[in-house]
């Protein structure tokens, strides 16, 4: 039983569509952050995850304006502004740490930074 594929103009984009895209990007970000060896690549995964969370916040904000109790939907946008701020700060610090690590150890390979390994 294959479900019938609807025509393009019969589809309405709902909250679940945005949440599914956000979940996909978040999962890819998790894989990138966990499996890469380069410190900059790990940071790329973290940025992808933050982006997915931003998409979730904006989608809830947009669709909650259709909810009866959604009095102030823009609060989600303010959350996203703060997430952007924290992401910028975190990227600056993390990349400075990567450059510092390279100056000390001549590598940014996280598998070879095992000084504190038990």
């Amino acid at each position, binding site marked *: 039983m294959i479900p019938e594929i609807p025509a393009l103009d019969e589809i309405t*984009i709902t909250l679940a569509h945005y949440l*599914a895209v956000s979940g996909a990007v978040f999962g890819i*970000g998790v894989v990138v952050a966990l499996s*890469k060896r380069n410190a*900059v690549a790990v940071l790329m995964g973290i940025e992808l995850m933050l982006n997915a969370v931003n998409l979730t916040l904006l989608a809830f904000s947009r669709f909650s304006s259709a909810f009866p109790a959604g009095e102030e*939907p823009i609060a989600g*946008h303010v959350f996203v502004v703060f997430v952007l701020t924290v992401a910028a700060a975190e990227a600056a610090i993390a990349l400075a740490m990567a450059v510092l690590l390279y100056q000390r150890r001549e590598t940014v390979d996280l598998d070879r930074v095992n000084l504190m390994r038990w």
Partner: protein
Amino acid sequence: MVLGFFALSGITVLSALLVLVARNLLHSLAFLVLSFLGMAGLFITLSADFIAVAQILIYAGSISVLMVFAVMLTPLASRDNGNSLYVIPAALGGLGLASLIGFVAIDTDWDERSTRGLAETDFPATSNVIGDLLLGRYILAFEIASVLLLFALLGAIVLVQERQRTSRSQDEGDA
């Protein structure tokens, strides 16, 4: 509208996947920028104009340039974007997480108006309301964020400059 959503989400997800599988670190960085731009387009479809522009400026502009700097300042390090030993459990975990989020998003019984689609509900302009909220109700969080940015600035400068100071003192000691 529908076509735009599917095209933009396809661009975003595919370039995120290419970040994962690209062999060169700089190529993967370029695909990351493409993914950020697609995400900004998705924000526009959610009528979040201010956030979309901020996304392009901050993510696709500044953070990617910072990452290019970090790659270029580590010239002897490997650039092959290789995976560690944990790629199989990481892939399983990420796939499980993504499918869990997708399943919950589709299976949850959202409010019926959330399935009505975007075209039938209006949405106010966002920039002035965001400004009012940031300098009104969320003023404390706004100030804390500015302090956080200041400390991140100082921290980045101090972290990278410390090595130069010690090497200079060593040079003076040698002289």
